[in-house]
């Protein structure tokens, strides 16, 4: 189906969200809680755009909005820009010292208001990506807990998690680097738990936890695999490709 975005036409697929379409076509819509590969969450509200459906104009969150035939989209306007700035201001109130949010504020010309800024240290903007990552790639070790302003991400009872495998997927997806992970002396500490790290048999660097490795092997249904880190795996793959191509050309 044909969709008009900021004056240009684009081809979209039924069932796609506006954000997916935009990403495919390198159209920039600001976002925090969206990540390729995950379904839209609609939590941060930054991706709001204006949609004209027939005679009706409305503001929608592009990460969740399913495209429809014949709609017209404006990704910026005075109204939308004002909204984006206010949303960033609200995030800045919550996490006034977080680098990522501070940079975003700078980019959009949003200034801090000290009187209403959070006086306690906070880096999490409750985008929920870490929970989704743990759900899809990990073991459901963390979840969104409580309600309203006391909402937070934590392990059950804020305790050492029995389920966490230390894979670090949550850290990877976090847009504000709010999750503490430390790798030191062959041990990884995350979510109040310490894991033993495994060394790569090729380069000797620590690259994953024992539990993570076991989890992946369980999923794959094998119990024996060489301990090779991503980097070395890629290197070995590319040299294998080099070999094959050598024989073709």
């Amino acid at each position, binding site marked *: 189906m044909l969709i008009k975005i900021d004056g240009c036409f684009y081809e979209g697929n039924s069932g796609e969200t506006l954000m997916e379409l935009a990403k495919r076509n390198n159209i920039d819509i600001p976002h925090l809680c969206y990540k390729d590969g995950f379904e839209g969450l609609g939590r941060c509200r930054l991706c709001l755009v204006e949609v004209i459906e027939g005679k009706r104009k409305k503001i929608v969150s592009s990460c969740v909005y399913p495209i429809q035939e014949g709609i017209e989209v404006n990704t910026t306007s005075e109204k939308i820009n004002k909204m984006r700035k206010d*949303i960033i201001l609200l995030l800045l109130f919550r996490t006034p010292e977080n680098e990522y949010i501070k940079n975003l504020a700078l980019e959009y010309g949003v200034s801090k208001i000290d009187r209403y800024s959070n006086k306690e240290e906070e880096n999490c903007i409750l985008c929920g990506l870490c929970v989704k990552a743990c759900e899809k790639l990990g073991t459901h070790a963390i979840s969104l807990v409580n309600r309203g302003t006391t909402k937070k991400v934590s392990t059950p009872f804020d305790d050492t998690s029995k389920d966490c495998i230390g894979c670090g997927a949550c850290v990877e997806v976090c847009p504000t680097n709010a999750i503490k992970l430390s790798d030191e002396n062959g041990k990884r500490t995350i979510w109040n738990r310490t894991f033993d790290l495994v060394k790569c048999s090729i380069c000797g660097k620590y690259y994953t936890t024992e539990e993570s490795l076991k989890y992946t092997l369980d999923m794959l249904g094998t119990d024996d695999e060489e301990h090779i880190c991503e980097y070395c795996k890629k290197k070995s793959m590319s040299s294998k490709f080099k070999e094959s191509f050598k024989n073709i050309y």
Partner: protein
Amino acid sequence: MSEIGTKRRILICCGTGCLANNSYEVYERLRNGLKGRDDISVQPEIKATGCNGLCEKGPVVKIYPDGISYFKVAPKDVDEIIEKTILRNEVINRLLYFDTNQKKKITNHIDASFYKHQHKIALRNIGEVDPLETDDYIKRDGFKALHKVLLEMTPEEVIDEVEKSGLRGRGGAGFPTGTKWKSCYKFDNFPKYVVCNGDEGDPGAFMDRSIMEGDPNTIIEGMIICGYAISSHKGFLYIRDEYELARKNMQLAIDKARSLGYLGKDILGSGFEFDLEIVRGGGAFVCGESSALMASIEGNVGEPRAKYIRSVEKGLWDQPTVLNNVETWANIPPIILNGANWFKEIGSEKNSGTKVFSLVGKVKNTGLVEIPMGTKLSELVFDIGGGIIKDRPFKAVQTGGPSGGCIPKKHMDIPLDFDSLSNIGSMMGSGGVIVMDDTTCMVEIARYYMEFLSEESCGKCTTCREGINTMLKILTNITLGKGQLEDIDLLEQLGETIKIASLCALGKTAPNPVMTTLRFFRDEYIEHIVNKRCPAGVCKNLTTYYIDKDVCIGCGICAKKCPVNAITGNNKEPHVIDVGKCTVCGNCFAICPKMAVKVGGASAYAY
């Protein structure tokens, strides 16, 4: 007067309000006191009914066919009622209702100003039937509409009738019910579900509670009719955790209905199958939002979702679902029985039928009132409500709960309907009407609503979660005397964004109480900020009291009530408050028989 041989009916209200005042004991004493007496020719029928709506004057006992209504009946009054009224047909004057408008005692409650103007459709059976006796319901045309639907009408005809009636959702948004049913009907995707929103969370609203407790069968009948219309075979009633009696009565009514063949397989021999299940809420206001409610039924936290695809297409478990409010369901059987035209003739154009309002706050007669849509607000507050307590000056009403807005004196004649109320920046909401007088601080009311909403926000989206919290901080500052003029600009700026950018109706309507109080009572905000003074005398840091010497009669009651002995004066001479000692507790202000204690200038202690 009752004739010999005519069966008397004695109805005792056992809704939550009257139960809190020992009405069940009244009921039991009446039953025991009248059992097997040989001085009564015909044994009276004694029933425990649901809420009559005038809870403040309860327990309420109604005696038919005499047409006598007794109020504030205590268990110790029962013997007198039996001796005097039942045996000797005498009226006990002191138990009669005193109508402050008509300035006289009323024998039959239907003649009271509070009841006279009412037109009961949704509340038609409440207070007249024992909710646990399905026979009572049947005797009053109960399940007749269901008969008609299953045996004489097609699903299309049912939807048509509901659509023609103009019924709009009574839960808040006022979406045309028939249109909703029709959309759901069109989706060829099964199973479909029917849901009742019994999560009445608006503070100040209790009409849904009253209907669930007092006439559960009307909801059951309405839902089965919808099931037939859209080809659904399963319905859920989501009932708030705090409404234990409602859940109990609803479950008993469902079980009874099933045993009588109104639920289950082959209802009334029609071949149609339908059943109902109650789901208990968990103490979350946000679960009154339809998508959050469905998430809760599914076993998740009550977080709403964006509704670009409506629930009639993808609702409960992504299946087509019709969700309606308790009061909406209660209107369905009468509409089917009496026809769409009958319903359309009541109310106003585009707002047909009646609405149940819960009139509460600083008004003399508090309780449930069912009146035609379009009735003026002034009529509700003064003619029916009897005006402000102690006849203090009227200030505003809040309609629509935390999602609504305040309506000031200059708009008193506004018709109470969906469109008029939303045009003025408020909304109908569930029908709560909270009356405020000059002792209510509008800034504090806005702060109260933001506090409520900040605790009830599910926390999913930035604008609602952080936005409401920020507005709360700003308003708290203002009520403490720490406000600045820029705060008003910030409130308006953020309010606009929160309205547009929030994910669900809770967030989108959250700024309304703030925006409307700013619109109509801006001076009060400025008074708090610039002059550090609360004109209503509510914000303690910004209040001082003084005694108007032209009004004070020197009775000395205030001095006696003062906990810190800050009031001095001779008998029959004007008294004086020592502001230095005064702790602003408000006792003198509340107790003065002449309202001579007034709110004075800015507090010297404000900062």
